[in-house]
């Protein structure tokens, strides 16, 4: 079982996200995470889907996505792809833990974006594994709430999804 990231270029039209997610439901494929947003062209949106499975499952997902009429391009992202996750995490702010939290923020190149007497909210971006490690580090300090995006990913160099 591996984690795969699939980039999907779709027409920016009413109901397209539903078409994509409904295909997953219908075929019994499980989505770990999904992000969707604007692209360099207003006519298209880009969806990045993260899923866990074997190569056969991944191949099926890609080919089923290809069949959707509004899908223009599907590509399995390679392992050296640039991947980023954004997370906001709210941690209890206490006198005895404050220094440790702030030094972790420093080391992880995260940012404190809200700070009150009782809590601080930290913004962090990075590879999914970095985010996981940061969460683990924060757990003992008392995580009050957290919110993370799915993966967004782009190929390195000049290579683009549509130009590929």
């Amino acid at each position, binding site marked *: 079982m591996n984690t795969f990231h699939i980039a999907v270029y779709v027409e920016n039209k009413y*109901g397209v996200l539903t078409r994509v997610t409904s*295909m997953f439901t219908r075929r019994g494929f499980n989505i770990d995470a999904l992000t969707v947003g604007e692209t360099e062209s207003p006519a298209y949106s880009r969806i990045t889907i993260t899923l866990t499975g074997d190569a056969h499952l991944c191949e*099926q997902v890609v*080919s089923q996505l290809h*069949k959707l009429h509004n899908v223009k391009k599907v590509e399995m992202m390679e392992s050296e792809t640039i991947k980023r996750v954004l997370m906001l995490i709210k941690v209890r702010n206490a006198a005895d833990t404050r220094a440790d939290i702030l030094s972790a923020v420093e080391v992880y190149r995260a940012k404190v974006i809200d700070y009150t007497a009782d809590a601080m909210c930290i913004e962090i971006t990075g590879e999914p594994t970095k985010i996981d490690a940061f969460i683990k580090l924060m757990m003992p300090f008392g995580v009050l709430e957290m919110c993370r995006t799915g993966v967004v990913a782009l190929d390195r160099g000049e290579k683009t999804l549509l130009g590929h």
Partner: protein
Amino acid sequence: MKMTGAEIIVNTLIEQGVTDVFGYPGGQVLNIYDALYKYQDKINHVLTAHEQGASHAADGYSRATGKVGVCIATSGPGATNLVTGIATAMLDSVPMVAITGNVPCSLIGKDSFQEVDITGITMPITKHNYFVSSVDDLADTIREAFSIAKSGRPGPVLIDVPKDVQIATAEYVPQAVVEKAPLPKASDEEIAEAIRMISEAKRPYLYIGGGAAGLGMGADVVAFAEKIDAYIGCTFMGLSAISDKCPRFLGMQGMHGHYASSMAQKEADLIVALGVRFSDRATGNVQKYARGAKILQIDPDYAEINKNVQVDFGICADLGDTFARIASACEATTRPAWCEQVEALKEKEKQIDAEAERRNKAPLPPHAVFDIINEKKPAGTVIATDVGQHQMWTAQYASFDRPRRFVSSGGLGTMGFGLGAAIGAQVGSNSPTVLITGDGSFGMNLHELATAVSYNIPVVVVLMNNGVLGMVRQWQTLFFGRRYSNTVLARKTDFVKLAEAFGAIGLRATTREEFASAFDTALVANGPVVIDTLIDQDEFVLPMLPPGGSIDDIITAKEEQA
């Protein structure tokens, strides 16, 4: 030319070569029906008794003609009544365009009267669907829908048109009929690899499905089988692509397939799969399927390659072109050992069948019904079915003399499909049409008899009446200790009187002689006839591969299990 949206819909249908549509009017399609009235000399509308019947009729029309079938329904319940028919077309890759009306855009999302999100509902059962919010997009949307429906692997497309879009006006400029989008061609390397696999094979089995049947490839496949000394088997959806009189053709394989066809597939060392999707009903237990064979699969749908069965080599390309290139480049060869092996299987099948027929003492056994139909039916007869035992007997026993003459719901297995589909097939093909049905299936949509009578559509309904849901009963007999839960119909319906009440001819047959005589009468009746054909409630469909089993578990005789 300025036109209303409703007129644009009808004109675009006419422009796309549509001559017949099936449907049912209602509040949100009044404008479309008004346009159909206006253009009635150019387009024929068949009013069915129920929208489901219209969807099956459009499907049957398409299966019998190869054209895109079209059905129309109003919003809400009209649209939801199409759902079973659309799903049926989807599972069997039948090109269809369904047009529904909806409430005006200003009322969308307000739970208005007869409002339903039909694009949301049909998303997983259409190839694509549309909600048209501007009259300016209407004509091009319909054209795109036709292109999607018939291109690549065909399928149904739904277009939902709110009432205000039907009323609004726009410029309409006629365009040419949209062509099928071209499919990728196989590379020379792929063709070479396919040829290598075929030339290395000692026991090749050409396996044709709905994809090959839809392209009318039967004759080419037979010629190729003769050239390389191979045998041909088919899936349920591949039936009628090849005449059953062809000595190379072993018939359907799978759960209720012919013994020789299923066994030859098991004994083959190469299966050349042409437009098949390896459905569970065809493969049985996939872990045990075709273990001794390599599989070469050619299909235009990339997602079908390795979906259900891992193949040794898959080519995703234009099926007709790829096959033609392989067939012309393969060297002619003989495989006498393989022929001997398959001929022995055919001999064994004959013995099994003869023994089963000898043991069956019923006054009207199912195979006898088909012997009579096969002997008497005119050339080019379309045979439609519903779903159940009668359907499998049709697949096993019915004789087909040309492609597109078998109209049956394979993938979805829709009971109630038959009568609507037979009506559509008759309208489209103008050929003699026989519907083989059962008392269970017929009961689901028999109101379409009214349609057949209204339009005097000469469909001969052979109602194989055993008073039970025979296929489910067969499973209960074999696997549920004869606990016949809710499969004994015990209805008091008199189907002869019922046919007469609808204005059709009703006949009854309890013996071979009575059936032969009734069938003769029906063929010359020039209108719908129902033959209430009484058969025994404990007839079995055999052979059978038990669910989850493989060809090794084949049941060929009733006594082994019963």
